[in-house]
């Protein structure tokens, strides 16, 4: 019995240790990945590259959200693989590029892996979101609060060029143009099938000379 009890305690501590790594260790690691990617991206931009291949994916932009602090700057990588999402924000496959017509969809962790969208519920309608690329900074204004729309992870209508809520719920307002941005993250701290979503539209393009 003593052996069984000790085994259970050790096994439980291993599980709790793994959880601690998930909630704190992966953040520590991801922040280093983000710094590495940002450094490589800036260097690539200086050499004239629009996209820079890193160990964690192809980086194309840096996201800045003033609501989350003046120093908030997280690299955007192409795709939504685990490697990408553990090193920055993912630009969903086959959605529009930054500033282009269509829907520029970005996904990020709300907890673990750097948690770039940790404060997603604090977003408010009218908040600005800046996407910096090599050639321009695209400024979007959000059309929803961070808690206004939650959908199941299978609701791919939010990825459409012009998302229309199938049940008449929150969606990008009409008349805001064709150049949209959508931010997606998990709606709860622990694992969930629901995702929080905000939409926004492009209001300004500022060319950058490098």
């Amino acid at each position, binding site marked *: 019995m003593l052996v069984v*009890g000790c085994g259970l*305690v050790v096994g*439980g*501590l291993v599980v709790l240790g793994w*959880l601690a790594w998930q909630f704190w260790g992966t953040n520590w690691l991801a922040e280093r990945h983000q710094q590495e990617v940002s450094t490589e991206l800036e260097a690539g931009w200086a050499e004239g590259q629009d996209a820079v291949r890193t160990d964690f994916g192809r980086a194309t932009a840096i996201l800045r959200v003033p609501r989350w602090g003046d120093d908030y700057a997280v690299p955007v990588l192409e795709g939504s693989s685990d490697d990408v999402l553990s090193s920055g924000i993912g630009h969903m496959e*086959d959605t529009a590029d930054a500033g282009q017509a269509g829907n520029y969809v970005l996904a990020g962790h709300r907890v673990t892996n750097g948690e770039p969208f940790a404060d997603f519920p604090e977003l408010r309608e009218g908040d600005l979101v800046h996407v910096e690329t090599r050639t321009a900074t695209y400024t979007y204004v959000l059309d929803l609060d961070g808690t206004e729309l939650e959908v199941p992870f299978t609701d791919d209508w939010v990825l*459409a060029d012009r998302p229309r809520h199938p049940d008449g719920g929150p969606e990008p307002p009409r008349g805001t143009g064709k150049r949209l941005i959508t931010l997606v993250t998990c709606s709860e701290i622990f694992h969930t099938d629901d995702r929080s979503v905000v939409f926004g539209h492009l209001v300004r393009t500022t060319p950058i000379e490098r």
Partner: protein
Amino acid sequence: MGTMRSAVVSGAVVVALVLLGAWGAPAASAAAPDPYNPSVSTECGVTVPTRVSSGARLAISLRVTANSGADCVGDVRVQVRGADDGALRSSAAVLWSRTVRYEGEPLRLRGPALPDGRYVVTSQFNPDDASFADCDGRAVVTVGGQLPDDDPEGPGGSDDNDENAPAGGFLPDTGGPDLLWLLLGIGMVGTGAVVVARSRRREPAAVA
């Protein structure tokens, strides 16, 4: 952000401890159905052009994703049937069928060249790992007629959702681990501690 997360995690620990305390109660162990589905949800994405020209072979993109973030491995059966107003007719004959191996990476297939008309392309995923759920995907393609380049909407998509436009057909897993892991860890430590304490109490009695 760290403060909020810590508060929520701490709250979850308290809830877990309360649940753990109630674990020993006979009523609790008898009722409480497991609210968690053991299967990992999957989503099948099948993408085809909205419209292709007459005589052109159909390009089909396949993608299977799991909400766990793990790679989906298994077989995907792809079929093309005739469609009536975009609806799949169960009586419609299968015009083209392939079964391909899916190893976690998106696939592109060259489909058939079809006569003018509307068709439904379906995909059915049969996972190797039984813990993954099956899934189906479908998309509609029109062969012949006005091509997208002539679309009066111009580039940037249509006014409404285009069922062929979204690529993955899923939203990635961007949350933390399952709450069950926390409950499991606390439960194991708690149970183990009780077992150790009881066994150590019995040892002196056995010696005496």
